[in-house]
């Protein structure tokens, strides 16, 4: 390399990197390279996002008019159920850990790969098998239980394809467990010399916390699904009220996993956020230790709040009281994170690149999602709002406003590292703006219409709610354009994008010290780490401060 040239040479792609190390189909489908497996996940979750999105289109089309005219009530039940199942289990849960987590964790800690590369590949295949069952249930009559599979409807009443869908969720759970296991062992045992726990990027901390939930929560979902399947296939009677069983027990077991699952979706996005905020302000994340421990606090407290989904399901007043208090408590570490990101940005020289737009969007949307979560933690208010569109708006602000903003922000931030090329910045900014605007237009009216009393999960509604629903459907169409754009310009950039160079953002972090795309072994030689995670601006490679 001509480092003595008078003018800085244009960056070039490295000769040998993980993308051209083997070009056959088998070199992709049998790869053990965590970076290639990350791309396999990227393709897969994009497909399921599109499928889930198409169901959302049907929902918004149906709700554009008060009458149930486009879909019958039964078809509508299936459409919103499949939207939920596809998005939750086959997109939101694997999206960030599977793609960005897989790609970045080994590089960020200075390792050559995850601890168990074959297991990592197996996780992807298990995910695909689970998703195949999920898709099979769509094609084979669909599922109409809602993504929550509530008993006794799911066990005795529903005539739809409960068993294949449940099997899909069960199998997919193992993919999640094995990914979490792989991350935990990797973060414990594979860190480069000098990479102490408190030098880890916060992305790694939040994935560690996520992995704990995957490993501790997912098996409970697995056994719950087994019990439902045993009841449905063998007509065993564990939740069967006719034999003295308790359908509400199902709800306890289900939410024991499914509340923490929200953190499986949002903690990785928070990890992305910490990286984006630090890089876009060129400042260390304010209160590193607090942000790191906030991830663990969220993971731990998150296991003790599940009862807030059951305030109207007949639990004791005292249980409701305790679950309510704990639900307020779990908001504290989330708020700590939001405050610390804003404090990092305060008086920072913020660069207005696409990832920054997503980061700021995340802070706005996640804050609204979090604050409306506090409404729902208050037992009295929750009883009014349960099963209304207020709930729908709330969790979309967390799952879409939080997770998808984090996911897309992260994809845009690390795209040059993953592919070696830049995307069209103008289009990317336009799409980020469309997503932010479209999202708010879709979901903010749902808070209002829910507060006014419109219940969720019906294909028809009273005419006075039409105005707000039309706004929501209009927003959804803007959102759809916003999501379609990245798909096109990112693919376009693979061939025609400008070559990015090792560190296009001037960011710190081990991933920016290696080539873009990185070599198969990630680094020429194992790095020796003698610095903290966010030593801005001192440690920016290739940038003179």
């Amino acid at each position, binding site marked *: 390399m001509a480092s003595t040239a008078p003018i800085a040479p244009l960056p070039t792609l490295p000769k040998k990197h993980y993308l051209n190390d083997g070009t056959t189909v088998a070199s992709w489908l049998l790869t053990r390279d965590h970076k290639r497996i990350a791309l396999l996940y990227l393709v897969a979750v994009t497909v399921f996002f599109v499928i889930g999105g198409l169901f959302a289109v049907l929902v918004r089309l149906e709700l554009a008019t008060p009458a149930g005219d486009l879909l019958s009530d039964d078809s509508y039940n299936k459409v919103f159920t499949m939207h939920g199942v596809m998005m939750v289990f086959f997109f939101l849960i694997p999206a960030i850990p599977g793609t960005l987590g897989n790609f970045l964790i080994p590089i960020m800690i200075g390792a050559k790969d995850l601890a168990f590369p074959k297991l990592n590949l197996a996780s992807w295949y298990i995910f695909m098998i689970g998703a195949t069952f999920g898709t099979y249930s769509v094609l084979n009559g669909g599922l109409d239980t809602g993504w929550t599979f509530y008993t006794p409807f799911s066990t005795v009443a529903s005539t739809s394809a409960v068993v294949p869908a449940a099997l899909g969720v069960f199998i997919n759970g193992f993919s999640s467990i094995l990914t979490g296991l792989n991350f935990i062992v990797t973060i414990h*045992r594979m860190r480069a010399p000098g990479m102490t726990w408190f030098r880890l990027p916060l992305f790694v901390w939040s994935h560690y916390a996520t992995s704990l939930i995957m*490993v501790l929560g997912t098996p409970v979902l697995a056994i719950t699904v087994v019990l439902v399947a*045993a009841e449905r296939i063998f*007509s*065993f009677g564990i939740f069967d009220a006719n034999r*003295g069983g308790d359908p509400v027990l199902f709800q306890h077991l289900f939410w024991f996993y499914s509340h923490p699952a929200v953190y499986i979706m949002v903690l990785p996005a928070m990890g992305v956020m910490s990286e984006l905020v630090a890089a876009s302000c060129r400042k260390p994340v304010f209160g590193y230790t607090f942000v790191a421990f906030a991830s663990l606090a969220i993971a731990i407290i998150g296991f003790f709040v599940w009862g807030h989904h059951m305030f109207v399901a007949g639990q004791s007043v005292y249980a409701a009281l305790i679950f309510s208090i704990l639900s307020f408590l779990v908001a504290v570490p989330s708020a700590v994170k939001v405050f610390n990101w804003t404090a990092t940005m305060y008086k920072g020289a913020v660069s207005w690149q696409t990832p920054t737009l997503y980061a700021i969007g995340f802070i706005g949307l996640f804050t609204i999602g979090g604050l409306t979560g506090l409404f729902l933690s208050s037992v009295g208010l929750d009883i009014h709002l349960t099963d209304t569109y207020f709930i729908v708006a709330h969790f979309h602000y967390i799952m879409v406003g939080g997770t998808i903003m984090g996911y897309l922000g992260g994809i845009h931030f690390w795209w040059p590292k993953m592919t070696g090329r830049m995307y069209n910045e103008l289009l990317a900014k336009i799409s980020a703006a469309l997503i932010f605007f479209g999202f708010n237009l879709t979901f903010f009216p749902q808070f209002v219409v829910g507060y006014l009393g419109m219940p969720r999960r019906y294909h028809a509604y009273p005419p006075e709610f039409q105005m707000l629903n039309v706004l929501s459907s209009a927003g959804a169409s803007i959102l759809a354009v916003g999501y379609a754009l990245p798909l096109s310009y990112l693919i376009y950039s693979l061939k025609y994008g400008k070559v990015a160079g090792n560190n296009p953002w001037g960011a710190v972090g081990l991933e920016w010290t290696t080539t873009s795309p990185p070599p198969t072994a990630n680094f020429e030689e194992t790095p020796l780490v003698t610095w903290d995670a966010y030593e801005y601006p001192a440690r920016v490679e290739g940038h003179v401060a």
Partner: protein
Amino acid sequence: MSPETSAAAEHHHHPALAHHFDSLAEQNEAATLGMWVFLVTEVLFFGGALMAYSIYRSWYPGAFASASHHLDVTLGAVNTAVLIVSSLTMAMAVHAAQLGERGKLKAFLLITMVLGATFLVVKGFEYHEKYVEHHIPGLGLPFDYSAEPQFAATAQIFFSIYFVLTGLHALHMIVGLGIMTWMYIWAANGTIDKDYSSPIEISGLYWHFVDIVWIFLFPLLYLIGRHASGAH
């Protein structure tokens, strides 16, 4: 010694060492930690079903005690003994692997597998007995609890949980037998040696775990209300 292994020995590079680890010791530690994390997952997997068990047992103590008396304690106790001995032979296999004694390793693995298979055969007899006595609460089979009609409904919950828990446990035993077969092949073809005994140790962790699950299941399912006078 084949030319490959001697070349590897010259570079102090064990054939089992994966490219992304610096040493076999590091690799073994990672694998061991991985198995422990997996076993934590398993605890929560069985934990969910045991949660259901606890709630229903506290709601329906009479039905649970009554239904528990229909299980065959003798066969259950025999199976408990079989598994405890198999844990011992598994531990001996690990010991033999660490010392690099291939013959003993193979023998102990084989005994462990025979004991595991014995357990499953006995379990099969017990399941058959339930079928004959009409104590299977589903599959479209007749369920007969006419001797104590007041428990006819809730006893089905006990038997549902019984079949789920013991069925999942048996499934884990079958997986364990598969792992042991795999380890036997590795022991026989020399993949396992003194420096690379960790696959046996890790398989052993799994085997012990499955045994321990049974140690919990046996009293929880078979011995309800059998203490003191033994009265119902």
